[in-house]
């Protein structure tokens, strides 16, 4: 049986790569442009890196389950608009938070139903849901730049009260990473979920409720987007209809370069966080070096492709293949 349930908890070798890559990138940043490693810049790396991590965590859960979520940007936009709309009075903040999480969870449920009940390919299903979600977002009163979050929310999102470096969102994301990591490693629900992502057929034969787990992955992923949407709304202050747009590709890229297999099953939430930090630092370095946008995109794409190649390359198998080829040639 080709199932390796433990791999979901994060094998040290595979998932350590991204941290090594991040260390190299930070060293390059220090050498090429020390400005990007000043205290303020480092604080920004943690802030924006963990914001992207929060978004990527939702994507991570979906991808470990063998899916992909292209509605992430639309959900972030809708979530932030719903939050800003309902948070107009300080007394309604709790209601706004609950409604935002509920809205995103409902979007996730729609994704899950489309994939598991209607049997639509995740790529198409989530793309369709993204279009509907965006349509709904346009319908939120004030969606066209007429909403502003209360000052207290802006303050909560922007302040860095822990050691003067970590925002509340950052701390919440780190806690989330630890909880999810523990769930994948030590709890049966996490291990079962990884098994389903790795080999749904086997899981089905074993009697696991595969479709329910997959549906659940979209809902849980979307709940995390809901949290990120609230954070994003607080940061942006005036959330608009395009707020979530920059996060679609990076959310997938962070998961992929963190070592999660695109086909599902193997992944580490800690490594996904490393992937998000890596992408954030890469963007900062490119911006500070005045690299043309074309170069930024090429580097980002090359990193994703390179990262995937590194993970997919089985060096022992490849060397055996070429060794056999060499021996056969010698015989003939």
């Amino acid at each position, binding site marked *: 049986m080709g199932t390796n349930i433990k791999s979901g908890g994060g094998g040290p070798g595979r998932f350590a790569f991204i941290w090594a890559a991040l260390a190299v990138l930070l060293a390059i940043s220090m050498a090429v*442009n020390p*400005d*990007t490693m*000043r205290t*303020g*810049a480092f*604080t*920004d790396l943690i*802030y*924006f890196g963990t*914001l992207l991590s929060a978004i990527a965590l939702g994507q991570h859960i979906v991808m470990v389950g063998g899916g992909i979520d292209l509605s992430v940007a639309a959900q972030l936009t809708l979530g932030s608009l719903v939050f800003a709309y309902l948070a107009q009075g300080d007394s309604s903040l709790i209601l706004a938070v609950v409604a935002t999480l509920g809205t995103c969870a409902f979007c996730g449920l729609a994704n899950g139903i489309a994939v598991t009940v209607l049997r639509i390919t995740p790529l198409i299903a989530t793309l369709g849901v993204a*279009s*509907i979600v*965006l*349509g709904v977002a*346009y*319908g939120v*009163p*004030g*969606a*066209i*730049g*007429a*909403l*502003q979050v209360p*000052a207290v929310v*802006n303050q909560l999102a*922007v302040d*860095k009260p822990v050691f003067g470096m970590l925002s509340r969102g950052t701390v919440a994301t780190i806690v989330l990473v630890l909880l999810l990591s523990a769930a994948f490693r030590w709890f049966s629900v996490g291990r079962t979920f990884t098994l389903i992502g790795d080999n749904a057929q086997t899981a089905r034969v074993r009697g696991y409720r595969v479709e329910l787990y997959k549906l659940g992955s979209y809902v849980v992923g979307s709940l995390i987007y809901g949290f990120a949407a609230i954070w*994003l709304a607080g*940061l*942006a*202050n*005036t*959330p*608009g*209809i*395009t*707020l979530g*747009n*920059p996060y679609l590709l990076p959310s997938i890229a962070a998961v992929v370069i963190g070592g999660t297999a695109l086909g599902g099953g193997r992944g580490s939430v800690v490594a996904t966080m490393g992937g998000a930090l890596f992408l*954030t630092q890469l*963007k*900062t370095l490119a*911006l*500070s070096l*005045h690299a*043309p*946008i074309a170069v930024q995109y090429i580097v980002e794409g090359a990193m994703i492709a390179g990262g995937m190649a590194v993970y997919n390359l089985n060096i022992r198998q490849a060397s055996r293949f070429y060794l056999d080829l060499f021996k056969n040639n010698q015989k003939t």
Partner: protein
Amino acid sequence: MTRHKDPQGPSRHAPSLCRLAGTLTIAAAAAFGSAPAQAEDGLSVALFTGTCANPIRTTWQAQAEYEIQQKYADVVSSVEWFCAQGDVNLGISQIKSIAARGFDAAVIESDWGGALLPAIKDAARAGVKISIFLIPVDGEVGKDYVNVVLSDFDKLGENAAEFFIDKLGGKGTIIGLGGPPNNTWDTPQIEAMKRVFAERAPDITYLDTGWADWNPASSAQAMGTLLSKYPEIDGVWSMEATTLIPVLNQFIAHDREPPAFYGFDTNGLAGQYLDLKKKYPSLEYGMAVSPSLYAREAVGFAIDAALGKEVPAEFVIDEKFFDCSAVCSDLHEPSMPDSYIPTSDLPLDFMQQYLK
């Protein structure tokens, strides 16, 4: 009598439905011939924009419909709003449907420049009197459209430079935050600003531009990088008002005082400025008058042309700006949404229905 559609516009509520409707309209027009939109007793007017996802577009719609209500109520019988939702193909379909349905006059704001020109030419051949505004689409004035209403990018940049020279006393450093890299909206303004600095205030240096897609979160991230790179930043320029508050917050997060800033006017930004000013008394805001008058001018030209009147081939908007410290206490309307444009010069109750 003027018949107004839902001010929010169907496309804003349900873009997918709007696309479907646009496609079906074209299909119906192609299959069964055009269905003229004009009523028997007046002109039909179409208002078209490439996107509608920001307060300026909403204000354009309000401006155009207010102009019609005030000046052309007796000659215009129907007004219809088209928004292409950022989809160039949908935009082409919609302009073709404007031609197919026989509108008398149309104002068109193209986010894609010349990409819409063939459809515009078809509409002109079908007899629609078209006024183009904001973004040129090439083509021939008088043949492909009746006139064009344009921004004065040089003046916009010069105004910003004038503000900074005044507030910084002729010495300092400026950072810009823009949309997509080297876009045709920001770039000429930045160039004009640099030119004025070089000519009149050589001690003011334009340091850098953070290209951040006019996205508030991306702009905050870009500003963080620029703050680390440049220890002295005395002014920030951005012509997307929603990016400025997160950007100013970044200064505070980096333990630096928010600098003088320049950008378009919104009610929300004016209110935030007044709040911040209490804590940072030296804070200055150069409030560029938003280009909300384009649609009003353009709709007037299109209708006049449909009525057989002479219209100028080109009309360039006289770009202005205010010193917020002098006018914002009066201009800021706490009762209005943040997206309200204080300089739009429309009655508050009329504007309110567009900004729900």
